[in-house]
């Protein structure tokens, strides 16, 4: 299969995008302003991201479908209200993460947003559990655009009336020109924002409206530093099939009922880990000075024992310091613990830090 392009490819090009191959797609890594400016702009104004390479999987079904999906996804799908979303995972029988995802209850079934690189294996796994009568399809008619940043709501409200009332992790259908878009208040940057599933034929008009309203294009480079500051995992780096959600410090994403009742892939292992703790765990790490500890950098204790590895690391533009996360022997995972990282054969001091590095309050309704 050749390289795929999103409906916005030419528009990205006209905006000065530099492209990189990503999960079989040519995607913008940055535009003219560069990663640092794009990052800061998302934190202070609003930026848009073309995330159309991600999978928008729609599975049609009723209550029985909730039961079926609960076997592979540890979210509380039975209790999930219409147009509400949850961050969750697709698990293998060892509890390892096949993919992390956002699942939303729609009127006729579930919408699942999947990582681009995992689409095929995800669908393969999900289809094994579905009855033959269940219909599912990967949406190719709609682009997926993330609008992120503190100014997102006021800007989007101009064209999608009522969107400002959506609470974090809730969605709804909104008319745009003569088509219907599905908008959720969500994102992966740590900022307030929305994800908009919109007809490929209409997406350029939406982007032009954004540009007229001073929304800037943001590439994958800034998306990575934004999610890293927000302490969010990147699949294939911070998560994979040999890591379970408890080790990833994501047990909050498994509801209380599911933690007690289980009934999902890998529950026997996850149950044990919930009771006894895990031998390694994902933590935040801040190296001293300006030293950047990137993926693969080894972590050592003060007495020179190898105790872990960095899985994501870069410079955090909003914090103006390097930030990293990785897996570490649980004994050393307490916030504030002094550790060492080995970069270019030299040892540097670092300390264990609480995640996220950067936190903003999401819109939960009320005032």
């Amino acid at each position, binding site marked *: 299969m050749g390289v795929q392009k999103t409906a916005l490819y030419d528009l990205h090009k006209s905006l000065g995008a530099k492209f990189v191959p990503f999960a079989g797609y040519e995607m913008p890594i940055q535009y003219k302003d560069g990663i*640092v400016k794009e*990052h800061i702009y998302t934190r202070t104004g609003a930026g848009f991201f073309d995330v159309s390479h991600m999978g928008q999987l729609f599975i049609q079904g009723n209550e029985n479908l909730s039961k079926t999906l609960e076997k592979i996804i540890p979210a509380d799908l039975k209790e999930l209200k219409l147009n509400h979303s949850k961050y969750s995972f697709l698990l293998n029988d060892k509890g390892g993460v096949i993919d992390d995802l956002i699942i939303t209850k729609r009127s006729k079934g579930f919408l699942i947003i999947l990582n681009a690189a995992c689409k095929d294996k995800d669908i393969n796994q999900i289809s094994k559990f579905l009855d033959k009568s269940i219909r599912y399809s990967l949406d190719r008619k709609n682009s997926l655009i993330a609008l992120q940043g503190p100014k997102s709501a006021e800007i989007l409200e101009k064209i999608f009336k009522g969107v400002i009332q959506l609470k974090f992790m809730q969605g709804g259908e909104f008319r745009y020109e003569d088509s219907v878009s599905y908008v959720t208040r969500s994102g992966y940057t740590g900022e307030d924002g929305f994800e908009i599933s919109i007809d490929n034929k209409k997406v350029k008009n939406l982007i032009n409206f954004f540009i007229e309203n001073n929304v800037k294009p943001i590439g994958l*480079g800034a998306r*990575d530093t934004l999610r890293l500051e927000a302490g969010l995992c990147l699949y294939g780096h911070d998560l994979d099939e040999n890591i379970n959600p408890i080790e990833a410090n994501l047990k909050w994403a498994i509801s209380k009922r599911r933690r007690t009742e289980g009934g999902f892939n890998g529950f026997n292992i996850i149950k044990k880990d919930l009771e006894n703790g895990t031998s390694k765990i994902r933590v935040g790490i801040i190296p001293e000075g*300006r030293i*950047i500890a*990137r993926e693969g950098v080894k972590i050592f204790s003060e007495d020179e024992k190898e105790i872990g590895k960095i899985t994501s690391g870069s*410079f955090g*533009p909003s914090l103006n310091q390097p930030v990293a996360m990785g897996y570490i022997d649980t004994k050393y995972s307490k916030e504030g613990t002094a550790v060492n990282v080995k970069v270019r054969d030299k040892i540097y001091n670092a300390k264990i830090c609480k995640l996220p590095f950067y936190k903003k309050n999401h819109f939960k309704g009320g005032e």
Partner: protein
Amino acid sequence: MSEVKFSKNHEWVKTEGDTAVIGITKHATEMLGDIVFVEVPESGKTVEINGQTAVVESTKAASDVYSPISGEVVESNKSIADDPSKVNADPEGEGWFFKIKIKNKSELDSLMSSTEYEKFKKENPS
């Protein structure tokens, strides 16, 4: 008059008598993107021709900076280690990396003139 010469690794070399000032070209900074970390060598360090001498990191990746000529480091630009954005702002001026006491002047002959470098960039787009 000092002359500026260029390497295929996108470093520039400006000779001032027996010493040479070395940095990375504007083109290199454009390829790297926002520079967020720089490590410069200690004075007294001996460097081989095209030997790894400094490190530069953008948000995306880490890259080595090589010395296009051999010699001994006599001074390093500590100010770019404190504020790496200076390299993006003025790569061929305030953003210099290190100064070297030239060991073998003939090594300069194999480097490119600015016209040659312009041509090289066009023929080798990144």
